[in-house]
């Protein structure tokens, strides 16, 4: 099946794949050829593109959507998509510390916008650190 990952700064991945595991808004989504038409939101997390047996490409995605058409094309539109080799680990670890400190100092409710924004920053930094460590 065909997979395309599109961001505002260009197409990050495009090619034939065996399957895609996308971080869906309500749980990870495994998408294999012949999947039913689907349109789902994504959360911040790792998107795994299965290029072949034992050959996965892990990418950080920050929100966005996954769109399956005709069981043969998967399109992921996201504002941010990063490959492991593009991640500078030291910088990310610092980000993570900062984001975690900010989140723990947030006195507001867990439902508040501010808390959600900061939580998302922590999630993003965590995911980047995780993917960055695999290179």
């Amino acid at each position: 099946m065909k997979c395309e990952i599109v961001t505002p700064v260009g197409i990050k991945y495009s090619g034939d794949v065996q399957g895609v595991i996308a971080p869906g808004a309500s749980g990870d989504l495994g998408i294999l050829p012949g999947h039913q038409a689907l349109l789902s939101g994504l959360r911040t997390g790792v998107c795994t593109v299965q290029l072949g047996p034992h050959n996965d490409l892990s990418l950080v995605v920050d929100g966005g959507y996954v769109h399956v058409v005709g069981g043969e094309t998967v399109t992921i539109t996201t504002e941010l998509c990063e490959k492991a080799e593009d991640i500078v680990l030291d910088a990310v670890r610092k980000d993570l510390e900062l984001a975690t400190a900010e989140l723990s100092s947030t006195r507001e409710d867990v439902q508040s916008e501010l808390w959600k924004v900061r939580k998302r920053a922590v999630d993003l930094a965590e995911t980047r650190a995780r993917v960055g460590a695999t290179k």
Partner: protein
Amino acid sequence: MPSLKAIRRRIVSVRSTAKITRAMKLVATAKLRRAQERLVQLRPYARRVNDMIVELAAGTDMDAHALLAVRPAKRTLMLVLTSDRGLAGAFNANVNKAAWNWVKANQANREHIELRVVGKKGRDFFKARQTQVGHVYTDVLNNVTLERATGIGRELVAAYVDGHFDEVFIAYNQFKSAMTQIVQVERVLPLPPTGLDDGKGAPVDAAPTTVDTIFEPTKDAVLDSILPMSIDVHVYRCLLESVASEMGARMTAMDAATKNAGELLARITLAYNRARQSIITTELMEITSGAEALKG
């Protein structure tokens, strides 16, 4: 005939103007290339977002979502995208005039039209016409980011959703080439069911999905997040189009200015040489006639 000194001063001034316009042209060219690149990179993204909207809208009752439902147009919001700096040919004048004409033409059948302006040039234009402007965003075009576009987009959506306005328009320069920019006045809210223009002609109608499409978490949740997001992307694209247009217009204008300065320089240099020549001739005549007189 002006004195030699005056002409010489003129030559120096024209020469330095030409230097400035040439430098401005070079800067605009470099910035244009960057802006064009970003525009090209954004296009596939804008198209995919549009595809999803078209697909969603095809299977949805248009009145079901606030951003899709068409209400009688009484109160209108118009966002005009201009630049902070001038010397860009007709870039600002065109978009301002188009917005102004639109307002004049549609004022009669609406209760209220509010203008919001990006850029100091738009602000000054409407100030000169004693027209009130709801909000001015400055320092946008010199550094367009998705965050900034999202901020503006969110404000448009919020003003629309809470019922302050029944429709939202954007007036901007669409980039065709460095020579041509086309002013567009487009409705962005309520969202047209064909999606928003992605700058590459009208979107082809994506095959409307069958009822079987799964939406996660729910169709409404997807609509709620994707519709405002498409506005942000559209605002972002319009801003990038404006930057590219501004730089293209400035490049063309500065190129023409440099050429004109060159022509002017040739003309005054000729005048300068003529004046110099005639002074020399007069001097020579004086000397020879003086010498003749002494002989006599």
